[in-house]
């Protein structure tokens, strides 16, 4: 016997999580594009968009609380609702990384980029792509994909290390560049953390489908790996 009303609400909930995810995905790409083009007004728009992300997260949170209060979810339903609560919180924090990058662009003012951005946009593209597939895997409860995506985080970590080494080389050659290097390093760090959080979403997918709550890829580098 299907619980038609509840299941319709669960579907709406998943749709809302996907909408929030695409807002966050677009924001990370836009924030790096704005930095690349040194487009301050585009970065300003990211800050405005982040407010919408936060608003959407609170909307979903209250939708979730109402479902928990009124439907007494158990077993798979309970794991799904608890995981959505966790994932929207991850997405909100991931949105903050875009805001961080937008703020860097704004604070840089007229200063030119220290170097052309090559690996940084790759990091953003890779992170956005991982997020997109992770959320698809979440709504489809595709645990095979959910277990595979976190391994790709190593590529983002490798790009981060690449950016870090290049920037350090420049700074060592000319210590006056340290502030401009720092801006780019923080940008890369935001992107590295963004991809890390995709792993947390994948862990929830496995939890919803199997009830197993465990870390997937514990080679995750918090900042950078020792060379």
């Amino acid at each position, binding site marked *: *016997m*299907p*619980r038609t009303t*509840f299941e319709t609400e669960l579907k709406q909930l998943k749709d809302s999580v996907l909408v929030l995810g695409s807002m966050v995905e677009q924001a990370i790409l836009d924030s790096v594009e704005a930095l690349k083009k040194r487009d301050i007004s585009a970065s300003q728009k990211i800050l405005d968009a982040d407010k919408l992300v936060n608003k959407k997260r609170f909307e979903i949170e209250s939708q979730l609380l109402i479902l928990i209060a009124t439907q*007494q*979810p*158990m*077993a*798979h*339903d*309970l*794991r799904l609702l608890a995981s959505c609560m966790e994932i929207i919180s991850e997405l909100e924090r991931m949105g903050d990384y875009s805001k961080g990058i937008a703020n860097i662009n704004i604070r840089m003012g007229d200063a030119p980029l220290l170097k052309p951005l090559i690996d940084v946009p790759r990091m953003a593209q890779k992170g956005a792509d991982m997020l997109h597939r992770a959320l698809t895997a979440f709504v489809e409860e595709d645990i095979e994909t959910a277990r595979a995506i976190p391994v790709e985080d190593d590529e983002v970590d490798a790009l981060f290390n690449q950016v870090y080494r290049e920037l350090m080389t420049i700074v060592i050659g000319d210590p006056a560049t340290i502030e401009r290097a720092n801006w780019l390093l923080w940008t890369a760090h935001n992107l590295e953390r963004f991809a890390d959080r995709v792993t947390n979403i994948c862990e929830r997918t496995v939890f919803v489908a*199997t*009830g197993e709550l465990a870390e997937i890829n514990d080679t995750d580098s918090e900042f950078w790996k020792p060379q």
Partner: protein
Amino acid sequence: MLQSNDTATSDTVLEARALGVRYGDLLAVTDVQLKVLRNRITAIIGPSGCGKSTLLRSFNRMNELVPGTRVEGTLYFEGQDVYDPSVDPVEVRYRIGMVFQKANPFPKTIYENIAWGARIHGYRGNMDDLVESCLRQAALWDEVKDKLGQSGLALSGGQQQRLCIARTLAVEPEVILMDEPASALDPIATLKIEELMQELKKRYTIVIVTHNMQQAARASDYTAMMMLAEGTQAGTVIEYNETETVFLRPNNKRTEDYVTGRFG
């Protein structure tokens, strides 16, 4: 006579092995494997007609009061076969007490509701002390201490049910079986019974049959899920696990469908 053997000190109080119950030709419960653990609350859940109450009643031989009932398999209580011909069913029933869905106090005073059973079982201590102790354990003393001479039937439904629990305690059982003890009570009286169960489990082992899944989730330590065995009209335990496992990550698809409300 029921005699304790070496396993009496183990954590298992009751153990069903391939237990089945027939009413005449009708097989009502089949092939139940279950261990009820000491000082724990075990809930039996499942849809109507799946044999929950029948199983519960087989634990203290209450089923025998229905003519034509036969039990198959084995039920151990403290390591002893409960259905061994040498065992006195009356002794089983006072060591394994029962509380029913509908509170059924005797049409006597509150005091006598408790004293009566104890007296029959030959209690020789101070009866006033026993009555107070049982009423206190059943969290009823403060509400009735000034009216022990009044009829038990004059109490509210929730109080009557706690009086029945107090009455059960008076014969010092080791196990208390509860058959939907709160289904006729309002949420506050229900909560009192559930809180009381948490106190009682320190001294007794409790098995509760409930239709209310939230109650099983709130109040029990272990949950046995009953359903009709595949291809039969007889109920059996399809999953038995820690309560948190049954409600968070059940192993059985039919359990999952039931606890998420998609049964049927």
